[in-house]
């Protein structure tokens, strides 16, 4: 049966059985078809993923509708499910992460692309790629035993003493909470911002720099006013990529965010994120509705990262003009 598409494919050029047989014997059409099938399976798997998420969340989607995303109650016993505290926690930690990671990553990328000698730059880039390879659970392990005590005993008291008039830095200090989650995420997404931004900066044509330098600009002015603006869209792309990464990040956040479904203005307060609640509660979800609600959360997370990734790739494509993606 596998021969049917081949026959169709060459019908236009006159359908001769003997010619077809010869093509088959040379193996080209078979190789084409086999690889095509495997390529198609990637599409099939991805569609199946979306389908499974959609079907298995049906119970929750029908019961709560759009109100699911606007309700603050998460009560498995009375089967009342609202996603708002998790969405809030995910957004707060992710934006906190970007707040720290974007300046840090961009600075490092500028250093690697514009200043460092090639040898140093490639060595440091290698180290940063290794940092990106460190598993999430290892970040979590370290954060639980180093970052959390540090925050609880030194950083949070200091912040409360100096900036305590802001609602952001009030309330009891546990160490675990939005702040801890955001900071771990920052460290985890920095390598992505660095490697993509560096590549985008390296793609800026040399005459852009030469023109600024010839006008008497200093090295920094050249970088900041001629090179970075040229790479603006690509850098923004790296930020979106990092954001998509941060939104879906599970283990490290689960270990330090405090796991408490509440909405609090204070960054010291324990919270919860979408990925963390799925990780913690999925295996103990007893009712069908409970399970469907968790799967609907996963569906929301999927759609969000899907949109952000698409946007990021488009932006990076616009600046580097190299065609395919950069991973």
């Amino acid at each position: 049966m596998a021969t049917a598409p081949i026959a169709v494919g060459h019908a236009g050029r006159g359908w001769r059985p003997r010619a077809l047989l010869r093509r088959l014997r040379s193996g080209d059409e078979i190789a084409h078809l086999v690889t095509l099938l495997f390529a198609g399976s990637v599409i099939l798997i991805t569609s199946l993923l979306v389908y499974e998420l959609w079907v298995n969340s049906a119970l929750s989607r029908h019961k709560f509708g759009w109100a699911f995303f606007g309700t603050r109650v998460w009560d498995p016993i009375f089967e009342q499910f609202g996603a708002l505290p998790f969405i809030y926690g995910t957004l707060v930690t992710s934006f906190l992460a970007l707040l720290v990671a974007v300046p840090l990553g961009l600075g490092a990328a500028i250093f690697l692309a514009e200043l460092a000698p090639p040898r140093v730059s490639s060595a440091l880039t290698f180290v940063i790629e290794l940092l990106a390879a460190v598993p999430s659970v290892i970040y979590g392990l370290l954060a639980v035993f180093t970052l959390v005590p540090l925050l609880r005993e030194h950083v949070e008291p200091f912040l409360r003493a100096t900036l305590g008039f802001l609602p952001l830095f009030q309330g009891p200090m546990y160490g675990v909470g939005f702040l801890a989650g955001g900071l771990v995420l920052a460290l985890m997404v920095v390598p992505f911002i660095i490697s993509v931004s560096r590549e985008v900066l390296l793609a800026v044509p040399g005459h852009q720099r030469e023109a600024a330098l010839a006008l008497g600009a200093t090295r920094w002015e050249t970088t900041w006013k001629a090179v970075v603006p040229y790479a603006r869209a690509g850098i923004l792309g790296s930020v979106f990529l990092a954001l998509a990464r941060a939104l879906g990040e599970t283990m490290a956040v689960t270990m330090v965010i405090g796991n408490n479904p509440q909405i609090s203005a204070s960054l010291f307060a324990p919270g919860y994120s979408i990925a963390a609640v799925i990780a913690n509660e999925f295996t103990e979800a007893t009712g069908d509705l409970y399970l469907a609600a968790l799967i609907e959360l996963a569906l929301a997370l999927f759609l969000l990262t899907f949109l952000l990734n698409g946007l990021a790739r488009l932006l990076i494509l616009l600046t580097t003009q190299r065609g395919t993606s950069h991973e």
Partner: protein
Amino acid sequence: MNFRSSWRKIVNAAMLSLTGLCALVAVAALFFILGYLVWHGGKALSWDFFTRLPKPVGEAGGGMANAIVGSAKLLLLASLIGLPIGFLAGVYLAEFGGRTFAFLVRYTTDLLNGVPSIVIGIFAYTIVVLPMRHFSTLAGGIALGVMMIPIAVRSTEEFLRLVPRSLREGAMALGASRWKMIATVVVPAAYRGILTAALLALARVAGETAPLLFTAFGNRFWSPGWGQPTASLPVMIFTYAVAPYEDWHQQAWAAGLVLLGLVLLTNVAARAVLSRGMFVHRS
């Protein structure tokens, strides 16, 4: 020298050193992670860790032999699923790909690559755990395998594209058919790159925890065969780190050191394979 130009020089020096500092912070982070794990994990690491089963709470000693074997089985299964699909799809994109369909495949691959690992876990749960009605090594392996596919596809394509045109033309001129050319000339020429891609894909999923939580689940004992829940290193690290027992924390450090060591070594090995005279030169 007037005030303005010296101010500009000061700004220049300050900002440039700041960028250096940023790079330093990022690099220092890796060395901190590595150093801290070696310091704490080294103390807890012993021969028992590799050969014994976990002990019940309160009893000292014990190891994670079952988790190490479990991780190995999961990775084997993941490679059996992820690498062939990834490799052949990559060959399609690089060698046969048409316009629209290839674009669609590339786009979906990137999409799949960006899917959060926990969502992949749910996917494996719905297609394997729900019909089978229990957690299993098989489900965990499938989850990890799906995660490997996009990495394998894109890097295979990238490395095949680096093979010079002259090689292909040479093979064609000698009368080889297209698939013969691919199998005997193009793929062998790019084999270092493909090996690198496989190693990197393996390293990436080796540390994944989230997709295993509700597919492979966990197990305090050996898990014979493929149909039972199994322990794995990343999940053990997670459970042991968040538990309130001090000796579990020690075990978590040891497991963390082993896992990070394996992941980083695989990464370094992947690059070493590539840098040792890749046949193909980057265009």
